[in-house]
């Protein structure tokens, strides 16, 4: 065969690029269907360079024959540059001035409120009846803290005070015993000994003093509680009537 005739026949047998694409699409249409949906799943990773070599090569072949996916890849590459550039938007000096004005007004208002509260407090404290009111509130709080049973509170307090004074008396007694055994305490030994005996007996007697004082405290708080209760009952009666 004439070589020129052979080359001509061979050339005619080869597909043009558009014919090749059409054939591929025709085959895919009759087998797996279009592959664009599959390629879309990996286009973003392709643009990021996160795909393995095999998938990249296959996708590249698909892109060579798919104009739609080529356009998507080009847009994805643009977006990759454009998105970080959108992190900041120029606003100008007018906005800065507005923010500064708003926050300055806020700071001024805060300062004015602080000054006003100081003035209010100063006037409140300067009133002649302030100390009386404070005393009343403190008494009321004291009663509320003690609760409905001042006697129980006083009993608890008494127990703790007695334990404290007993341990103090023991400690003082031990010190006295050591002082008596000290050879340096010779001169005036009788006087010192008598004084120490008196100190020990005073300390030992202190629980009695504490008991007396606590009894008075319990009586007073109970009386205050009863007074407050009757006063509150009167107030409620007035309100309800």
């Amino acid at each position, binding site marked *: 065969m004439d070589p020129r005739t052979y080359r001509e026949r061979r050339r005619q047998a080869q597909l043009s690029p558009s014919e090749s694409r059409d054939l591929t699409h025709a085959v895919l249409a009759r087998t797996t269907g279009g592959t664009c949906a599959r390629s*879309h799943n990996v*286009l*973003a*990773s392709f643009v990021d360079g996160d795909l393995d070599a095999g998938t990249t090569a296959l996708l590249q072949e698909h892109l060579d024959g798919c104009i739609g996916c080529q*356009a*998507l890849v080009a*847009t*994805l590459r*643009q*977006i*990759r540059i*454009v*998105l*970080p*550039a*959108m*992190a*900041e*938007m*120029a*606003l*100008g000096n007018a*906005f*800065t001035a*507005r*923010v*500064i004005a*708003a*926050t*300055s007004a*806020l*700071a001024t208002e805060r300062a004015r409120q602080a000054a006003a509260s100081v003035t209010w407090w100063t006037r409140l404290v300067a009133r002649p009846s302030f100390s009386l009111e404070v005393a009343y509130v403190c008494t009321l709080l004291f009663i509320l803290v003690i609760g409905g049973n001042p006697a129980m509170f006083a009993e608890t307090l008494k127990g703790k005070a007695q334990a404290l004074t007993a341990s103090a008396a023991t400690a003082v007694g031990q010190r006295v015993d050591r002082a008596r055994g000290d050879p340096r305490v010779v001169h005036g030994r009788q006087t010192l000994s008598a004084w120490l005996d008196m100190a020990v007996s005073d300390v030992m007697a202190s629980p009695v003093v504490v008991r007396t004082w606590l009894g008075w405290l319990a009586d007073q708080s109970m009386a205050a509680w009863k007074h407050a209760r009757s006063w509150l009952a009167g107030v409620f009666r007035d309100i309800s009537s």
Partner: protein
Amino acid sequence: MADIELPDLLARCRAGDELAWEAFVRRFQGRVYSIAFAYAGQADDARELAQDIFVRLFETRRKWADAPIFLPWLIRTARNLSVDYLRRRGARTKATESEIDDAAELAGAGLDPESQAIAGSRRSLVWRALRRLTTINREVLVLREIQGLSLEDVAGMLRIPIGTVKSRSNRARLELAQHVLSLEQAAGPEPPR
């Protein structure tokens, strides 16, 4: 003249230095406004929201995060306040495309006027395409791709797994690209320059 270092700026703001506060506003207003714009969708609303965010930052300046983690903290704070704002307003997005076009602030700084116009028009197109995404996809793109937060930060903020952030970001970018293409096709070919 070199800008003041961030740790120093933050310390001065915490101490009540008014000049430092002004410098702070200037330094971060572009970023805060961008976040506000992404959520509010309208230039006027975004300005109001950005101002509210700065007032809130001013009120809480003694509790700011330290410099190494300040930017992610600022973005998270701005995002949370934006979400609150939209919840108060009653709708997540009500922007129209013309309003986005009207946002003259979209142009970036540091470019010559022609490049600035091209870049601004490109960004305007992407902003419009962003508005067409679902809220969650838009949030992922805003936080991850625009603001550049780490996968961990975005996952923590949106309370979704890290893997979901990555896959959602890829899907959202593809959707965004498709919307950009359709907007470009709708606008027709660019006139010859």
